């Protein structure tokens, strides 16, 4: 029984890690290339989920929602870039933090105004409902498997784009030294726009994927955003590879900790105390890991910039 549980929690952790990676990938690139702290990145994830909910409710098809939500999320991301973010690139980090916090307030409340505060449900696509037997007597939801596979495929595509194409080369160069790239005659503003738009779309994609298994509600991106920041700091800012490994690490630690910690604590404490202390410790694990990693490797696991 406990191996079953471990396997299921491991897969759940993997799936959380994949979602985190899709959000963190854009965040780490925007931060690494543009030196721009975008607290409103979690908003893109929420926008993706709401677009999926809205289109799925209108058309009745998840696939249609997936197809339409991506370009719409991209368009909304670029609109925000044009209206607000573009004017903040040459400001200091503190001002970026304050202004993007303003964007979070506006979009969260705007969503509440348009769709109400109650969580929305998105029906699971027919094709992917049900489960897949992964061990004898153990079914795992097909949809969650699909998220893992889809996310891994996206990560592969991203790796190819960044490592093997010309635009990817510019992005990597930008993450190492953006002013130098601009001095070499590359239109850095266009590069910024591509990076930003792509990051926004990835976060929106994560939102669409998460919509059928999580409740779609205002502010749903805020807590994931903090975890995504943890991911990019652990992974090393600007590093896609670091973000991928750190995202899986954080996803697994978060999920496994939640199911194992209370049991572990029961060895020392009474059951009710164990539940409470275990839950608190589990929530803390990710932050303890981050503090420990930063204490010994202040630039993260895979630093991009030297010094």
């Amino acid at each position, binding site marked *: 029984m406990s191996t079953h549980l471990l396997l299921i929690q491991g897969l759940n952790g993997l799936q959380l890690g994949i979602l985190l990676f899709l959000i963190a990938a854009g965040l780490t690139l925007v931060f690494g290339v543009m030196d721009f702290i975008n607290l409103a990145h979690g908003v893109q994830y929420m926008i993706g989920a709401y677009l999926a909910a809205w289109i799925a409710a209108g058309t009745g098809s998840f696939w249609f929602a997936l197809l339409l939500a991506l370009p719409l999320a991209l368009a909304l991301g670029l609109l925000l870039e044009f209206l607000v973010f573009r004017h*903040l690139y040459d400001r200091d980090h503190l001002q970026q933090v*304050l202004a993007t916090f303003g964007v979070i307030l506006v979009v969260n*409340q705007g969503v509440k105004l348009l769709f109400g505060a109650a969580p929305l449900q998105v029906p699971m696509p027919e094709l992917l409902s049900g489960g897949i037997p992964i061990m004898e007597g153990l079914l795992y939801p097909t949809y969650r498997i699909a998220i893992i596979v889809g996310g891994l495929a996206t990560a592969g595509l991203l790796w190819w784009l960044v490592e093997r194409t010309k635009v990817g080369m510019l992005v990597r160069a930008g993450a190492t030294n953006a002013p130098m790239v601009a001095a070499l005659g590359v239109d850095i503003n266009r590069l910024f726009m591509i990076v930003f738009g792509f990051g926004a779309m990835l976060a929106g994609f994560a939102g669409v994927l998460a919509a059928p298994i999580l409740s779609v509600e205002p502010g749903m991106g805020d807590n994931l955003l903090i975890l995504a*920041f943890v991911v990019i700091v652990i992974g090393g800012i600007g590093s896609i590879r670091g973000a991928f490994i750190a995202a899986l690490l954080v996803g697994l630690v978060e999920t496994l900790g939640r199911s194992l910690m209370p049991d572990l604590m029961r060895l020392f404490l009474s059951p009710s105390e164990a539940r409470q202390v275990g839950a608190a410790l589990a929530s803390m694990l990710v*932050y303890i890991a981050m*503090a420990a990693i930063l204490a010994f490797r202040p630039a993260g696991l895979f630093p991009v910039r030297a010094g």
Partner: protein
Amino acid sequence: MLPAVRAEAPAILLLAALAAAPFLGFGEGYMLTLLARAMILAMAAVSLSLLVGGAGLVSMGHAAMMGFGAYAVVILDDMGVTDAAIVLPTAIAAAGAFALATGAIAIRTSGVHFIMITLAFGQMAFFTASSLAGYGGDDGYTLYSRSDVLGLRLLDDRLAFHFICVGALALTWLLGRLLLASRFGRVLRAAKGNPLRAQALGFDPFPYRLTAYVIAGAMGGAAGFLFANATEFVAPAYISWQRSGELLFMVILGGVAGLHGALIGALGFVLLEEWLSHQWEHWRILFGVLLILAVLFLPNGLSGIPAQLARVARR
């Protein structure tokens, strides 16, 4: 007027206005409660501004300092100790000790990594508080009564509490101001401007920064003590990263050039929030737009407006 006095005029005027507020028609209960809340948060914001503006240490876990102060009140209250002469020093010491332990690790990093590691410590404090089942866990803890001062129920009187808050805020500001003007503050600023050069002059920034971090933490603890007494209730939500973020936004909104920026920012933030929330159900949209506009058009924050106007007028 002496230039030194003129530079402090905004803060002194603001503090004087706060002291006079009960006599200018803001004396009823609701208004005093709101002002007390604004002033206590301003205390925390001023102490955070000491770190951000003075030392270049952008902490995203400052609410934890308030939390330690507030939970010191809770734990002593549970033990039946309510005398401020014991509770307040304990609150300050608890927050200072937490700042010392976490600061010693956090200050090794800088920039964004410092933001994240202070966030991490703040979250640890948050989850610890929510696991304290004996003190209400997630639901929080309602105090039996406010602290008393050597047996006197001084904090119960609204007007007295108002003046205690004004005094505490003034003291925090004055202490921070003196610190920044001292030799200690100059080393901090030098290390903020160019750590390498400060080191070359023989000043290792680490002990200076750590001392500043502990002092700011202790001030935050004092603010937490007052906050617990103002609301007579303490919950883990006081330590959430959102609260730390809010404190940081107050500092940035006001401007980091001087400590009076944090005063203006905190009062502006709390009062604007309160006023807008009575205007429209979806007031957060307006609040967010105002924050964005403030950043776009007021690069030096609210406290930079006079200088900005003067520059426009001169043109």
